[in-house]
């Protein structure tokens, strides 16, 4: 009965999210400046859909994921989940809300406690959210979740080190699924895996989405994974979103020079095309001292006199947006 309303309200809306880390110096630990790791990010995820947040190291994409869950306290902004601003919740209500949003990390070896058995790793969240009447019922549920991620429930009592990398990532996914979330934040969840294993995990994530109606915020640097998996893409550079578009539109007709450079830099595996071009110049500047004006202007092949002087806003381009003066609509 609420399904109609739910489909019109986005599952997650992030507005003007800022995460600034203070830079402290001296014996009095005086704050002398801020690293603007995330500086005014907005994004929207609908139920059952996948949004990819892409960018290179240091762009702030991981910080966005953590700030949504308040694993890092945002400096400013709104994180509205099913209409409720998570940043205004007191600790007990925040804990309850977190049941709906779970995280899958890149390296399952460091995110799984090596001294805990699989059963306890997966059941831990259930216990803290009061899911399952008792231990034996929770064990039943753990076995069911393991089956769902295509792990043998016989392995319930094993330790993480007894599994391969791909299986450990399945355990990480099972742990997230155990509390029946609506949104999974996958932070480079397949980046450490070999291609053949990555395919297994991507297929699993696809299956889970269609079976359970999950939404994904997929944080990654891997553009081929993005194209395969996401409905829409936000590209981040130095703490800001520089372009947002539906996946096909972004890949076939990128607007922002950074997106264009990023796509041109992806190696092709078509032997008829050797296609990479190093269009983006130099290195990423430090987020503690972002360039003036457009933050990308120091590396941009299309830079002109206005770029260092003025910071471009996100220009709306009919269902997509780009933070570049070349896309200015009047």
């Amino acid at each position: 009965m609420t399904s109609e309303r739910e489909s019109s309200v986005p599952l997650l809306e992030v507005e003007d999210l800022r995460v600034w880390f203070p830079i402290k110096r001296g014996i009095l630990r005086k704050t002398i400046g801020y690293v603007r790791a995330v500086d005014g990010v907005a994004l929207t995820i609908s139920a059952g859909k996948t949004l990819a947040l892409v960018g290179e190291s240091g762009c702030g994409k991981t910080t966005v994921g953590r700030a949504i869950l308040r694993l890092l306290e945002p400096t400013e902004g709104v994180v509205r989940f099913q209409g409720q601003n998570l940043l205004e919740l007191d600790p007990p209500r925040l804990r309850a809300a977190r049941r709906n949003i779970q995280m899958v990390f890149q390296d399952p070896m460091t995110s799984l406690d090596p001294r805990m058995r699989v059963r306890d790793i997966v059941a831990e969240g259930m216990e803290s959210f009061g899911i399952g009447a008792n231990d034996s019922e929770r064990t039943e549920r753990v076995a069911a979740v393991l089956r769902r991620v295509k792990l043998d429930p016989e392995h319930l009592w094993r330790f993480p080190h007894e599994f391969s990398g791909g299986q450990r990532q399945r355990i990480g996914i099972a742990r997230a699924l155990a509390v029946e979330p609506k949104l999974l934040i996958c932070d480079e969840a397949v980046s450490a895996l070999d291609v053949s294993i990555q395919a297994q995990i991507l297929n699993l994530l696809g299956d889970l989405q269609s079976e359970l109606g999950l939404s994904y915020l997929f944080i990654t640097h891997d553009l081929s994974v993005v194209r395969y998996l996401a409905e829409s893409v936000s590209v981040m550079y130095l703490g800001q979103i520089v372009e947002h578009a539906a996946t096909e539109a972004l890949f076939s007709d990128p607007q922002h020079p950074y997106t264009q450079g990023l796509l041109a830099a992806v190696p092709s595996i078509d032997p008829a095309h050797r296609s990479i071009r190093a269009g983006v110049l130099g290195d990423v500047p430090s987020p503690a001292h972002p360039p003036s004006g457009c933050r990308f202007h120091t590396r941009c092949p299309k830079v002109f006199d206005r770029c260092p002087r003025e910071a471009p806003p996100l220009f709306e381009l009919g269902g997509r947006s780009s933070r570049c003066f070349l896309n200015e609509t009047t």
Partner: protein
Amino acid sequence: MALLEVRELTTSFPSERGRVPVVDGVSFEIRAGEVLALVGESGSGKSVSAFSVMRLVPKPGHVDRGKVVFGGRDLLTLSVPEMRAVRGHSISMIFQEPMTCLNPVLRVGDQVVEAIQLHEPVSRAAARARTLELFKKVGIPDPQERLDAYPHQLSGGLKQRVMIAMALSAQPKLLIADEPTTALDVTIQAQILELLRELQRDFGSAILLITHDLGVVNELADRIAVMYAGAIAEQGTREEVLGAPSHPYTQGLLRAMPALVKRGERLNEIPGVVPRPSDWPKGCHFCTRCPRAFEPCPDITPSETVLSPTHSVYCHAVARDLKGSPS
């Protein structure tokens, strides 16, 4: 004539069940000036193969058998000082993580100067001038200032450029590049791949490229050898291996890549995982995961099936296809 010829190379490590080969009878060759990619997933033995060529296999690993012929000499039979002269002089190596090879307490310029003086009797001033030239050549911005920088003051991409400058200082005939761009962001990776392409053209060095990334392979390699579980599965030109793969493993790997599959379609899964070296089948190492495995595969090591003068594959099923078809 081949610049480097590797024959039946076998390198083992000890395990609870005695010594176990992790590189098991690998043969390949590199001609002067060409780029050969040794490509495979983790545990394929690609890096151990490269370290075996350099005689840098970490203990307790050991090269048991085989030949590594370079410039008419078998490197495996050289004395330690002779081998040291080969390393850095005729063959240089760059690694995935440049930080592990740069000394954190020495200025990067001095480290390259030292490498030059180790192999050539030149003055410090001359070596420093040459280092500056190399820094310019590998595209380090503000090269004069960067000579006096410490490694931690440089970004990952710049450190990799310093490593490449150091590797090129002796104008080696062969450069072994072990995952040279894996730790780098994609825009920086593109810069380094372009640099390696230019340098190969300008210096004429051959490159043995070790990587798991088929995209990087396609962008840089002339020929490709695909490794799986310590053995070569297939080798051929870039066009042959990526355009018309023959081994079931190569085929499976390419179909598992999200870049080649449309959204919503399932990716090909290669079932299971790479077995540990102690669990490798006696015959074809891929047979436990192969969709085309049949009777001989678990017990008999497949021999080379030649598909073209440049393309060969180690697979019983492909050999049977060829025998069965009248040609």
